[in-house]
């Protein structure tokens, strides 16, 4: 059924259709509307056979999900930003124990300085936590990825993180096609755990493992993620047959066939990038787009194939590996057979900074003319940075960095986001 609804509500609809049994909720923007939507469904009885638990922290949210999943229940939670970091110990634990929990991450910057707006720092900080990480480009894909996530996680006994851009997607009203309960039931079988806490068949879960077996346990987690590289595209095909649309998969390409340069990105910014590419194509530039849907496992072969004919790659990424540059670009380089020097990193949109077509067109044009630095910060206010550096040279006690920069900037009129 077609509905014009908020992204968070679309995800709540999708999760509810997956018949979760335990949902743990802790508020953090911009994820909160999702669990609010689910809580209302549980309380009203619309979502039956489900426990909605208001916990006292994100650490507890993931821990309740761990207990519920180990006891055989389909468990779900959602978080963002600081919340994801606060639960980090339990995030690693969930994957280490092989529990198929699904979690939405409404991507948001990490402080300090505190910032509620969108970038990918939160999800990227957990890229090696052992979860499958899927990134939605739009709200339809966010909805669909959740349905795929439960099946994928439960098949592999691995947790799955569905990442969607905070505010840009979670708070955007878009038309989405919501499947019927019958469609989802037919596609997603009931949860059959490989391990379960059951008095009739007692097992110990979570024992100490020493050097004699730790490597093998970790390898198996890796092997399962490698298997996901086969399942994800296969099930995207099945999903297309069952639901009638393309969603998920490892990656999406756009106008790459004859492209000399390919722009790589994740999430909602792909829309802006495609529009920019269309404009540049009209000017005769041979440029295409590679959108990564599955970031973990890293689809090394699929990315390599997609970049096989590219002479140059520009990675637009919404997170910063401080002291290095780009996280996604580092991954892209493992899949690029051309010179690593021709992979450019464009750090963009940190803390919700708007990524405009004009700015993207400038860096793409510069890249094609071989005039782009290896690492570029899109729309960085150099003068502002220079003032801050000068202040630090002049004065030992130069004061708090962020507050000084804000003072330099003066009062900024509120802008729509």
């Amino acid at each position, binding site marked *: 059924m077609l509905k014009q609804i908020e992204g968070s509500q679309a995800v709540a609809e999708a999760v509810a259709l997956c018949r979760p049994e335990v949902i743990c909720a802790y508020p953090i923007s911009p994820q909160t509307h999702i669990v609010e939507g689910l809580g209302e469904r549980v309380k009203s009885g619309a979502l039956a056979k489900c426990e909605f638990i208001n*916990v006292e922290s994100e650490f*507890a949210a993931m*821990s309740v999900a*761990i207990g519920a999943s180990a006891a055989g229940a389909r468990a779900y939670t959602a978080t963002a930003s600081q919340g994801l970091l606060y639960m980090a110990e339990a995030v690693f634990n969930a994957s280490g124990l092989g529990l198929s929990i699904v979690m939405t991450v409404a991507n948001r910057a990490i402080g300090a300085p505190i910032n509620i707006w969108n970038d990918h720092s939160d999800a990227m900080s957990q890229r090696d936590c052992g979860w499958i990480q899927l990134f939605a480009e739009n709200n339809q894909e966010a909805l669909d990825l959740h349905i795929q996530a439960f099946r994928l996680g439960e098949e592999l006994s691995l947790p799955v993180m569905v990442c969607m851009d905070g505010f840009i997607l979670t708070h955007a009203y878009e038309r989405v096609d919501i499947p019927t309960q019958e469609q989802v039931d037919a596609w997603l079988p009931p949860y059959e755990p490989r391990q379960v806490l059951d008095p009739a068949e007692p*097992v*110990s879960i979570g024992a100490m493992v020493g050097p004699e077996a730790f490597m093998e346990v970790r390898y198996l987690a890796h092997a399962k993620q490698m298997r996901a590289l086969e399942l994800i595209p296969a099930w995207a095909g099945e999903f297309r047959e069952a639901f009638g649309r393309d969603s998920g998969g490892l990656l999406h390409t756009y106008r790459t066939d004859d492209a000399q340069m390919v722009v790589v990105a994740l999430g909602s910014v792909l829309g802006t990038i495609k529009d920019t590419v269309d404009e540049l194509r009209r000017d005769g530039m041979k440029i295409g787009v590679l959108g990564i849907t599955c970031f973990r496992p890293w689809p090394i072969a699929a990315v390599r194939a997609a970049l096989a004919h590219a002479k140059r790659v520009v990675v637009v990424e919404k997170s910063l590996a401080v002291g290095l540059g780009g996280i996604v670009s580092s991954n892209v380089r493992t899949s690029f057979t051309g010179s690593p020097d021709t992979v450019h990193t464009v750090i963009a949109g940190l803390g919700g900074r708007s990524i405009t077509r004009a700015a993207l067109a400038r860096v793409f044009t510069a890249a094609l003319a071989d005039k782009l630095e290896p690492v570029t910060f899109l729309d960085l206010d150099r003068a502002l940075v220079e003032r801050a550096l000068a202040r630090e040279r002049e004065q030992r006690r130069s004061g708090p960095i962020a507050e000084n920069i804000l003072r330099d900037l003066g009062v900024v009129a509120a802008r729509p986001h």
Partner: protein
Amino acid sequence: MPFQPVKFYQTGTFTVGNRLLAEDERSVQSNMQRTNSLNSGHRACQGCGEALGARYAIDAAMQATNRQLIAANATGCLEVFSTPYPETSWQIPWIHSLFGNTASVATGIAAAMRVKGRSDVRVVAQGGDGGTTDIGFGCLSGMFERNDDVLYICYDNGAYMNTGVQRSSATPPAARTATTMAVGAEPGNVFGQGKDLPAIAMAHGIPYVATATVAELRDLEAKVRRSMGFRGARYLHIFVPCPLGWGHASQDTIRIARLAKETGVFPVFEAENGEVVSVSKIRRKVPVEDYLRPQKRFAHLFGNPPRADVIGRIQETADRNIRRFGLLDAQGAKP
């Protein structure tokens, strides 16, 4: 079966006379009915109070729930010594997740049981004092506040024993640990710090809070059984001496635990909905010195000259416990 009050004690030792009880009320180590939930062969130290407490507590919980029990365990001695895989001493479904999240994991298990219509399956969470009063405190308070159907058992040995005897917020004043060294003008742990977790649990207004020691296993078992008669969050705080961390002889575990109770250092009581409903009276009051002296963690109090002032402060704390909980009968108050 009514719980028969015990009135007879063996002279001198205060040991509850099992022989004086009806056979089906005795707490017997080798009882054929015992489930051996924490089975033999684990790697606890000789005289480990925590192993003893866990064995009796979990067996009693198994009995009370008709063997429909799942346990969540915090990181710590109990977790490490019971599951050096491929060996496990647990004959019940058991999960260890992290140090600080055990109460939340138990909440998740209880939620799963509820949603699956298995209200007959009950959940126990257990941890040491570090995992309970310090790192697991947030999750524990959340579990209490939501009144989730979980019995949380804290085995309190007053320090982080698994990592080498470091101070926790349950370490008593003056006690020497690896991080409250017996040096300086005021050796050992400082006065005026630490958490009274049974009182904090009671302040949450949860249905049942109790304390117990491994010196009175029959009382401990009765409290576990009683706790299983309630739905909602329950808290059992068990005093478990640690020969390694406390520096007492391993055969003295039960004696030390009994002295903690008989001095008033550790008040043994039960509370329902935030109100104390019963206390275990002190049979014959003994000075705290009798409790402190056998433990090397307090050895610096008995040097030359002895720290009578510090021992006096500990005595004041014990006397306050006795007054607060009414631990002495009028008769027992006499010298």
